[in-house]
Every structure is written in structure tokens, then in C-alpha cells.
């Protein structure tokens, strides 16, 4: 009896955890994750082009603000006017530098604050403008930097509807 106990104690002291299956699982998991990992996160910017519709026009169109943005390689022009008198037309110009675009974005934030229901911007671009710059302008128009991003809410859009007017004009 005593001998058996001694053998059991000796066996217990020599116990080693078999970690090979653990390493196997880790290796497989690592391989799978490395192969499927997407290191570039891809996003979308939704825009529209003008088109003819056979839908009936509004019978009593309300007075609304029209926001037009014109882009060339060096400047972004912001023009606003109301659809019916008094038009209160305004125009401002910004450079396409980071500071200029930040000022342009601030002007759009102020516009949104004054006209919270307004959601449409028409964008006109010069043929020589690079797609890279156009995306920066679209970001300034569409993404509301004043709001803390919350992925459960759609609260980070400034002007969600952007129509690229110069596609047809």
C-alpha cells in the first residue's frame, strides 16, 4: 500500500503538460488569420449624377437653399442661394490646401447648422481635377467632423446627397 502511494507521488511529480496540440491550434489559427487579414480597410462614398425622371414635380415647392460647390485644381468655390426671393446669394472661395479645405468644411458646418434640413449639394468639377482631390472635397462635404463617430448611429453625415452636376453640363 505504502509502495503504491510512493509510486503515485513520484508519477505526480513527473507530470508534464502536453502543449503540442495547443501549439498546433495556434499555428493553424495564425496561418488562417494571416491569410484572411485585410490590412487595407475599404470604404465608400456615394454620389449621384443628374438624370431625367418622369416623376411628377412638387405642386408647391418650398423655399430651400441651393448649395453649389465648384472645384478646380487650386480653388473650391462655395455658392449658396435660396430657390425663391429673397435669394440671399453668397459666394466664397477657398484654396485646395489642407487649411483651405478645413475652412471650406467649417463654412459647410455653419451652413448645416443654419439649415439643418438641407441635405443636397451639387458639385461641379473642372476636367483637370484629380480624383484624389475630388475625394478630399467629397469628404469635406459629406463627413461631419463635428460629431464623434458612433457606428451604431448614422450621425456623421453632413450633406449625404452629392450630385456631380458637371457630368452632364
Amino acid at each position, binding site marked *: 500500500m505504502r509502495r503504491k502511494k510512493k509510486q503515485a507521488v513520484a508519477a505526480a511529480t513527473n507530470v508534464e503538460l502536453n502543449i503540442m496540440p495547443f501549439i498546433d491550434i495556434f499555428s493553424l489559427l495564425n496561418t488562417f488569420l494571416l491569410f484572411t*487579414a485585410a490590412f487595407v480597410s475599404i470604404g465608400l462614398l456615394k454620389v449621384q449624377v443628374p438624370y431625367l425622371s418622369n416623376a411628377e414635380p412638387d405642386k408647391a415647392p418650398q423655399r430651400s437653399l441651393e448649395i453649389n460647390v465648384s472645384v478646380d485644381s487650386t480653388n473650391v468655390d462655395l455658392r449658396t442661394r435660396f430657390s425663391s426671393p429673397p435669394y440671399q446669394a453668397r459666394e466664397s472661395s477657398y484654396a485646395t490646401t489642407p487649411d483651405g479645405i478645413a475652412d471650406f468644411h467649417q463654412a459647410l458646418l455653419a451652413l448645416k447648422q443654419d439649415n439643418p434640413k438641407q441635405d443636397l449639394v451639387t458639385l461641379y468639377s473642372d476636367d483637370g481635377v484629380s480624383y484624389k482631390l475630388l475625394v478630399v472635397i467629397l469628404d469635406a462635404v459629406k*463627413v461631419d467632423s463635428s460629431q464623434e463617430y458612433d457606428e451604431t448611429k448614422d450621425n456623421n453625415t453632413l450633406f449625404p446627397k452629392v450630385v456631380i452636376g458637371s457630368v452632364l453640363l
Partner: protein
Amino acid sequence: MALSGDSNEAISLPIMPMLDIFSILVTFLLMSYSSDPISHDPNPALTLPDSITTVSLDEVPAVVVSKHEILVNDNKVLSITDGIDDKDTTQGAIYPLYQELVKLNTTNSNYSDAQAKDDSKVSTLTLEMDREHKFELMRMVMLSAQQAKFVTFKLVVSKEKARSS
């Protein structure tokens, strides 16, 4: 385990550092694992523009405008290495692209009863384009798509964090 020749002494390989590295790597990969609904590798022949958008990709791009060619569903439509030839343009649109997009819209409509009933219904097109291209080319692509009844575009961009400015 290996046995040394003379003393029969067991030599064990220290695997704990390797386990540590594996644990850290697995944790990092799991944390950075993308939860986007669609995983898509951009065309290697183009560079996407950076954007601070928070909207994730929800469908694979149908039209890809790389540095040298235009593809529709991975099929080459036109080479643009030397610009676009006048014979390929009609009323400001790229005719071969227009033809492919008409086919694409017809195929899409066959899968959608609502669109099949209403011929005037317009569709959405996902566009992946190199960031160095000029708006002139983008306008021609959009005009071709517009004539094929695609009026809403989802521009594929590379997501970055909000700019500090």
C-alpha cells in the same frame, strides 16, 4: 527532445518564448480582424484615394479603372494607356464601356422583379478608380454609366482616420 551522445541527458527546447509570440500575434490579428461585410482586395494596378468616410464596402466593385485599363467585372473593356481614342467615344461617353454596362444592367434587372417591371428604374454602380486619374476620365465613365441607367455611384476609397486639420 534530443539526447546528447555521451551523457544521455535530456535537452528540451524552450518553447515558451515561441508561445508568447504566437499569443501576441493571434491577439493582434483577432483585434485587427476586419468586421466589414465584404472583404475585397483592390486591383494591384491602382492606388485608391484616402478618405475619412465611415461607410464600409458592401459590394464588390463592378467597374475598375486602373492606371492602364478599364475593366467591367474583371473583364478588360478598354486600354487607356495612351488615352481614349476618339473612335471609342460617343457623345462624351466611352462606347465599349457603355455596351458592357447595358449588358450588366440587363443581367441585374433579370434578378430583380421590381426593375424588370419598371424599365425606367435606375441602378447603382460601384466604381474603383486610381487616385491619379483626372475628373475628365471619371466624367466619361460616369456619363457612360448614366446612359446605361446607372445614376448612383459608390466610389471605392481607402479608409483612413479623420485628418488632424
